[in-house]
C-alpha cells in the first residue's frame, strides 16, 4: 500500500508469473531492513540490492527511493548492486519489475529503518518521537535545531535493532522530495569518463584470456578434432575436456590466433528450416493451445456478425544485440569462486556456476559490474559458467569474453511467431467477437484490452526464461526473453487488426478504439497522446501517414502515435515524430522514465523495420552488425514522452511498456500513408514496396466478408 495506508512488511516472493527456469529455490526478500542498508559512522549509507544496472537507470531510482524514505541526501548513498555475497537474494532484473516489485520492499526497509532511528534519537535527545524531524540523515527537535544527532552517531555502523512495534508508512507522492524528481544519474560520471567497469574490464593478476571452440551450427556434432597446431605455441594453455575445448593466453589476440589453428570436422544437423518455412512449422507443430481468456460464444456469434475479418500475422527471430557481448572473469581462491559477470541474474548465475563446479552455492560469489545492455538476453549465463569451469581446470583466473560472432551465435533469440485473428464488428462499429491464437510468441500482451462480449484468446508456447524447454524442438536454436517478450508481436497483431476494422467501417482509429473500451485509465492515456500529438480525426487511409496503437504492459498503460513518410519507390519508411503517453502510476524519476520511452521506441524501430535473423536450420547467418541492422541515428524520430499523472497508484513498469506499441503504430501509419497493410514484421523497405505495388495490381482487394 502506498500513500495513506499502513505498510505491512511482508516477504514478497515471486508468483508463478515471475517463475524462473531451473531455480530450485524461491527468492524471497528478507524481512530485516538491515539486509538492505547499512549506515556508516560517517553517515554514508550503503544500499544493497540484488538488481543490476544495465542502462535502465535503477542504480539511481533505487537510491532515490531510499533517500526519500530514509531521509538522507542522494549524495550520501553508495549503491551496491548484484553482489551475491552482500545483497539480498533476487530472482534477477527483468520484467520491468525492479520498481514495481522490489521498490516497495526497498522503500519499506528504508522507512522502517527511519522509524527505528527516530526512536533511538528520541531516547538520546530525551524528546518525544513525534517532536523530531529528519533532514539529510540528521534527526533534530523541531524548532530546536541544536538538539540533534546524526544517523551515523545513532547507528555507529552497526545493525539497527528493531524496537518499534508498528510498521512504517511509506511517504505519499505529495511529500516527495527525492522521488518524483530527476537528479542526474549516479552512474553518469563513470560512464562519460570511461571509468565505468563492465565484466570484460575487470583485471585480476595472473589472468588468462580464453577463446572457446564453437560448433559452426547449432546441433552440429564434432567428428574430428586436431589440436596439434596449438599444442606447442608459446604461452598457450590448451584445455580439452570433451564438451569444453579452449585455448588460453595472457594476450587475448594470441588466444584468438591459436583458436584459428585448431582443425575440426563437424557433422551438421539435418534441420533445414529457414525464415520462410518456420511459420508453417510453428503452427503445425504447436503444442496444445492454452485458453487465456474466454467470454460469450465466438463460434455462435461468428455467423451473425456483420463484418468478419481474418488475418495471419508473422514475425521472425530477433537477436538481442546488446553492444556489450557476454563476458565474465572467474577467480578461484581458497575453495571459493568469485565471478564477475555480465548478467541480469547474478543469483541464478551463482547457482548455475555452483552446479557446474559441483559445489555448494555458498562457495560461489557473483559480482555484477555495469552491464552494457541486457534486454532479456543476459540471463542464460553461458559465459559465466565457461569462465568458472576454465578457472577450476587451469587453476588461474580466466576471462571468457564472447566475440560478436559468438554473441550472435549463442543468443537466446526472441522466437519467431504467428498470430491468427478472427474478429467481427457490428454496423455500429462495436467489436462483437475476437478469436485469436498466438503461436510461439507467448502470453504477454496476447489478451486485447477492449470491451468485447465474445472472446477466445489462446496461446501455445513462448520464450522460456533460460535454456530451451519442452518447445525446444520447435526452434532450431535457443530462444529466450527479449524486451517485453511476446508483447511486441501480440500488440502488432491486435492493434493492426483493430486498425483494419476501423478503416473498414470508415471510422477514425482513435474514435473506434474509444468506442470499444470503457477503461477510464486507457481512455485518459489515449486522450493525452492525442492532445500532445495533435491528432486530427480521419478514417485511414488518409494519406497523412499517421497511426496509433495502445497497450497495457507491466501495469503501465501506454498509447503511442506516429507520423511517418513512406517512399513508395523504395518502400523506405522514415518516422518523423512520435508521441508516447504513459500512465505508470507514481513516476520515480521522470527523466529516467522519458529515457526508457525514447530507448524503447528507438530499439523498437529495429524489430519494426529491419531486424530479422537469417538462418538455415541451426546455422546462424547473421554474425555481426554489418548484416543484422539495428536502428541508427538517421532512423530516430522526434520522440515526445507524456506522463498521465496518477499518484494514487504505486510505481509501475517503465523499461518495457514503451517498446510494445512500436511495431503496431508504424504498421498503422504505413497503412494510413499508403493503403497497404503489412502483416509481417519486420516491415522492411522491400516488403513495404511490394505491398504498395500489390495494391495497385489488385484494386478490388477486399478484406471484409459480409455475413
Amino acid at each position, binding site marked *: 500500500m502506498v500513500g495513506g495506508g499502513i505498510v505491512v512488511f511482508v516477504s514478497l516472493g515471486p508468483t508463478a508469473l515471475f517463475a524462473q527456469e531451473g531455480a530450485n529455490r524461491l527468492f524471497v526478500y528478507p524481512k530485516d531492513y538491515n539486509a538492505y542498508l547499512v549506515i556508516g559512522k560517517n553517515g554514508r549509507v550503503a544500499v544493497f540490492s540484488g538488481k543490476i544496472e544495465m542502462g535502465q537507470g535503477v542504480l539511481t531510482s533505487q537510491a532515490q527511493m531510499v533517500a526519500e524514505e530514509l531521509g538522507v541526501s542522494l549524495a550520501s548513498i553508495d549503491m551496491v548492486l548484484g553482489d551475491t555475497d552482500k545483497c539480498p537474494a533476487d530472482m534477477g532484473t527483468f520484467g520491468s519489475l525492479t520498481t514495481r516489485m522490489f521498490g516497495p520492499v526497498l522503500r519499506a526497509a528504508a522507512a522502517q529503518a527511519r522509524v527505528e532511528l527516530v526512536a533511538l534519537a528520541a531516547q538520546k535527545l530525551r524528546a518525544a518521537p513525534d517532536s523530531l524531524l529528519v533532514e539529510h540523515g540528521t534527526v533534530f527537535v523541531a524548532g530546536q535545531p541544536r538538539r540533534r544527532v546524526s544517523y551515523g552517531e545513532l547507528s555507529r555502523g552497526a545493525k539497527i535493532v528493531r524496537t518499534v512495534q508498528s510498521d512504517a508508512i511509506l511517504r505519499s507522492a505529495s511529500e516527495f522530495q527525492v522521488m518524483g524528481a530527476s537528479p542526474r544519474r549516479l552512474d553518469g560520471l563513470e560512464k562519460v569518463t570511461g571509468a565505468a567497469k563492465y565484466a570484460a574490464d575487470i583485471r585480476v593478476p595472473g589472468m588468462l584470456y580464453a577463446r572457446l571452440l564453437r560448433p559452426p551450427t547449432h546441433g552440429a556434432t564434432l567428428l574430428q578434432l586436431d589440436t596439434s597446431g596449438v599444442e606447442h605455441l608459446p604461452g598457450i594453455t590448451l584445455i580439452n575436456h570433451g564438451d569444453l575445448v579452449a585455448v588460453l593466453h595472457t594476450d587475448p589476440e594470441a588466444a584468438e590466433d591459436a583458436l584459428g589453428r585448431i582443425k575440426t570436422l563437424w557433422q551438421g544437423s539435418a534441420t533445414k528450416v529457414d525464415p520462410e518455412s518456420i511459420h508453417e512449422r510453428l503452427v503445425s507443430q504447436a503444442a496444445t493451445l492454452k485458453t487465456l481468456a474466454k467470454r460469450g460464444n465466438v463460434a455462435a456469434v461468428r455467423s451473425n456478425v456483420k463484418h468478419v475479418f481474418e488475418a495471419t500475422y508473422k514475425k521472425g527471430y530477433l537477436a538481442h544485440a546488446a553492444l556489450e557481448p557476454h563476458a565474465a572473469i572467474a577467480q578461484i581462491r581458497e575453495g571459493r569462486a568469485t565471478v564477475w559477470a555480465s548478467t541480469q541474474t547474478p543469483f541464478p548465475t551463482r547457482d548455475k556456476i555452483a552446479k557446474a563446479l559441483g559445489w555448494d552455492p555458498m562457495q560461489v560469489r557473483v559480482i555484477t559490474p555495469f552491464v552494457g545492455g541486457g534486454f532479456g538476453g543476459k540471463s542464460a549465463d553461458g559465459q559465466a559458467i565457461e569462465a568458472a569451469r576454465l578457472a577450476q581446470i587451469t587453476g588461474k583466473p580466466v576471462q571468457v569474453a564472447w566475440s*560478436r560472432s559468438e554473441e550472435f551465435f549463442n543468443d537466446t533469440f526472441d522466437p519467431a511467431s504467428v498470430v491468427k485473428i478472427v474478429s467481427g464488428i457490428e454496423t455500429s462499429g462495436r467489436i462483437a467477437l475476437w478469436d485469436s491464437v498466438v503461436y510461439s510468441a507467448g502470453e504477454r500482451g496476447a489478451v486485447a484490452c477492449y470491451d468485447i462480449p465474445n472472446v477466445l484468446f489462446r496461446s501455445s508456447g513462448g520464450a522460456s526464461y533460460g535454456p530451451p524447454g519442452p518447445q525446444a524442438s520447435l526452434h532450431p536454436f535457443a530462444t529466450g526473453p527479449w524486451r517485453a517478450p511476446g508483447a511486441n508481436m501480440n500488440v502488432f497483431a491486435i492493434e493492426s487488426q483493430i486498425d483494419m476494422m476501423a478503416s473498414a467501417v470508415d471510422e477514425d482509429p482513435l474514435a473506434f478504439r474509444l468506442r470499444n473500451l470503457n477503461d477510464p485509465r486507457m481512455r485518459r492515456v489515449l486522450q493525452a497522446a492525442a492532445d500532445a500529438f495533435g491528432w486530427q480525426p480521419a478514417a485511414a487511409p488518409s494519406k497523412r501517414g499517421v497511426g496509433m496503437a495502445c497497450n497495457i504492459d507491466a501495469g503501465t498503460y501506454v498509447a503511442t502515435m506516429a507520423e511517418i513518410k513512406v517512399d513508395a519507390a523504395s518502400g523506405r519508411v522514415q518516422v518523423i515524430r512520435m508521441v508516447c503517453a504513459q500512465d505508470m502510476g507514481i513516476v520515480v524519476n521522470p527523466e529516467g522514465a522519458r529515457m526508457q520511452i525514447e530507448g524503447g521506441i528507438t530499439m523498437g524501430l529495429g524489430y519494426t523495420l529491419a531486424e530479422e535473423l537469417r538462418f538455415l536450420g541451426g546455422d546462424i547467418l547473421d554474425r555481426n552488425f*554489418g548484416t543484422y541492422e539495428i536502428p541508427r541515428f538517421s532512423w530516430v524520430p522526434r520522440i515526445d514522452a507524456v506522463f498521465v499523472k496518477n499518484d494514487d497508484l504505486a510505481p509501475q513498469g517503465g523499461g518495457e511498456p514503451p517498446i510494445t506499441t512500436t511495431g503496431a503504430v508504424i504498421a498503422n501509419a504505413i497503412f494510413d500513408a499508403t493503403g497497404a497493410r503489412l502483416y509481417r514484421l519486420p516491415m522492411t523497405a522491400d516488403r513495404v514496396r511490394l505491398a504498395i505495388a500489390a495494391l495497385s495490381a489488385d484494386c478490388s482487394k477486399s478484406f471484409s466478408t459480409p455475413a
Partner: protein
Amino acid sequence: MKRPISFDLNGRRVTLDADDGRTVLWVLRTDFALTGTKYGCGEGVCGACTVTVDGKAVRSCLIHLKDIERRRVLTIEGLAHNGELHPLQQAFLEHGAFQCGYCTSGMLLSAAAFLREIPNPSREAIVSHMERNLCRCGAHQRIVAAIESAARRMSGPS
C-alpha cells in the same frame, strides 16, 4: 615484428616492446589497462572502440601498433583535462545522453573528432556523422542534443 614502438598516449609518451602487428584496441585494454575503449564488434562497424589518432577518429579494432607509431593517440581516459571534463562529457551528463554506457566512449571520441573538424555543425551533419556509431539502448536523441550543446559551448559566445 617485435620491436619497441613509441607513441603519445593521452599526452604521455610511451614505448611498448611488442609485435607491431598487434591490434591497438587490445593493446590499450590489456597492456595499458585502459578499459574505457570497448570491444563491440571487432569489424569496425559499431564504433565502440573509437579513439582518435592525431585528432582523427579511428576504430582501434582495425588498426595495429605500427599504425600509431609516433602518433598522438587519445582515448576516453584522456578526454578530460586536469580533472576538468571535456565540454562533450559535460553535455552528455547534462542531457543524460547514455543508458548502459557501453557505446559512450566511442560516441564521445567520435564526436570530439567531428567537432574539431566541423565546430558549428547542423543537426543533419551531426546525425550523418554519428550514423557510423551504434547504440542499442536508444540514447540517440539525447546524444545529438548533447553534441549540439557542446558545439555551442565550445565555439564560445557568438
